[in-house]
């Protein structure tokens, strides 16, 4: 069974500023329905299927709609059109630094984030040691997270997502601030999980090395359109070709 199936997903955003003028327009729209829509389409007619054991890098330049697509997958935002079928539990690492409760200790945050991802308390209790060991935060488990460095917060969040019993991990630029040693540790852990076909991952990063190490496949998002799933090297060739064309133009 597919973990995730996106069909004809389209999403647009209104990029106009919100002020008195937009309020007057909204009031007018309320009384006279206007078909004209000035929204900018961020994702257009996008299809994607994810199965157990898949590791997919989502490639695209800034503003291509990668984060929006991840938010749609996570259920944080809704598409204008299209359908999403989720047959999995999702651990999302989208705005991980704001997800943590900064007054809670690292230990308490494991239960806070875990509960938010619908992981049972028993499951979390059995995983606490693994999470702290992986994040190398045993020493700081009773320290409030507000005293953690950004890197430590990322380590904690990432460790929770990787260690708890969820099916699909979606990560958006999570390892950007991590040190090289932790990045290598994550690459090893994720590769292990993917090889054992326990979970799937959709990964967004501008770090080519990380993408190639973590993901077997890649998809390219360009002008709101998603390419077909390709082997990661093919996906990068296609991505580079698009970028070259853009530079030449």
């Amino acid at each position, binding site marked *: 069974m597919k973990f995730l199936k996106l069909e004809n997903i389209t999403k647009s955003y209104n990029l106009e500023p919100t002020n008195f003028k937009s309020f007057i327009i909204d009031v007018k729209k309320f009384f006279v329905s206007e078909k004209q829509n000035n929204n900018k389409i961020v994702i257009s007619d996008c299809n994607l299927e994810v199965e157990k054991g898949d590791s997919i890098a989502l490639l695209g330049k800034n503003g291509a709609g990668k984060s929006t697509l991840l938010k749609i997958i996570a259920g944080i935002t809704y598409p204008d059109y299209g359908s999403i079928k989720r047959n999995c539990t999702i651990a999302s690492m989208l705005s991980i630094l704001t997800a943590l409760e900064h*007054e809670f200790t690292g230990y308490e945050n494991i239960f806070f984030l875990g509960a*938010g991802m619908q992981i049972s308390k028993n499951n979390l209790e059995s995983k606490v040691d693994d999470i702290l060991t992986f994040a190398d935060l045993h020493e700081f488990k009773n320290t409030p997270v507000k005293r953690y460095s950004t890197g430590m917060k990322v380590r904690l969040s990432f460790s929770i997502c990787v260690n708890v019993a969820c099916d699909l991990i979606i990560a958006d630029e999570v390892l950007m601030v991590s040190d090289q040693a932790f990045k290598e540790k994550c690459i090893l852990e994720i590769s292990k999980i993917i090889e054992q076909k326990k979970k799937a991952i959709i990964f967004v990063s501008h770090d080519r090395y990380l993408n190639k190490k973590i993901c077997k496949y890649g998809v390219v998002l360009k002008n709101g359109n998603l390419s077909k799933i390709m082997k990661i090297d093919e996906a990068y060739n296609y991505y580079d070709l698009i970028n070259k064309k853009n530079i030449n133009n």
Partner: protein
Amino acid sequence: MISNLKKIYLYKDFLFQLIKKHFVNFYKQTILGPLLQIITPLLQSGIFALVFGKLLDFNTDSVPPLLFYIICTSYFNYFRGSAMKCSNVYQNYQGLFRSFYFPKILMYISLIIENFLLYLIQFIFLLAVILLYFLLGAFEKINFINILLSFVPILYITFFSINLGIIFSSLSIKYRDLTHFINYIMQILFYTSPILFSNSVVSKDLEWFFYFNPIYYPISYYKNLLIGSQMPNITFLFSSLIVLVLLSIISYFLYKFANKQFDDFV
């Protein structure tokens, strides 16, 4: 409806964590901690008792002014606290909403539960004050069934405040200044409800005016249960219930709108 309740049940652990988060955020690095829940209404009621009860000699239904104002303010403060906290949900917790999916109604429920628990602290203090006046002979009307029944108007105001909060928080996802209107509503309701004055001073000719105040009946009933204040006509209950039903319908649609559009605007 049932699927929504199921969802809430599935997230019960997270609901507990959210309540814990609210308490920790409120009480960490404080000197007085939960004592604030007693000191604040005591100071507020003390000033009201001094100004309105003693200096201006307002009628307080033959009970000591301090007791009268503690009862009135505890009810109104619970209402105000719940509505105000719920009216800023999307602005205050946008980081969490953007991190992972969870039903947004959980945030409202957690804030209401937090506020109800804080109310219970005030309620215990209120009972202690009633008992003290009873022992001193200044108050003779303790009725334990009425004390339990006082949670009925609390239930009404809980639903009323969560609906009001949902409406304002949903409207403010696009136009943030709409949240400020709830402050005006609170002020209007405070001065037009029998909080500072007794129901007995309300002129029969002008009583119709209170049909526009949906908390007039519940607060009067609350006072009646605890200190035997005069009850208004039952028709005021119907007007309150009609307003509650209307608010619930509006808040249901606005919640659905905000749930889908939140990320587009906030």
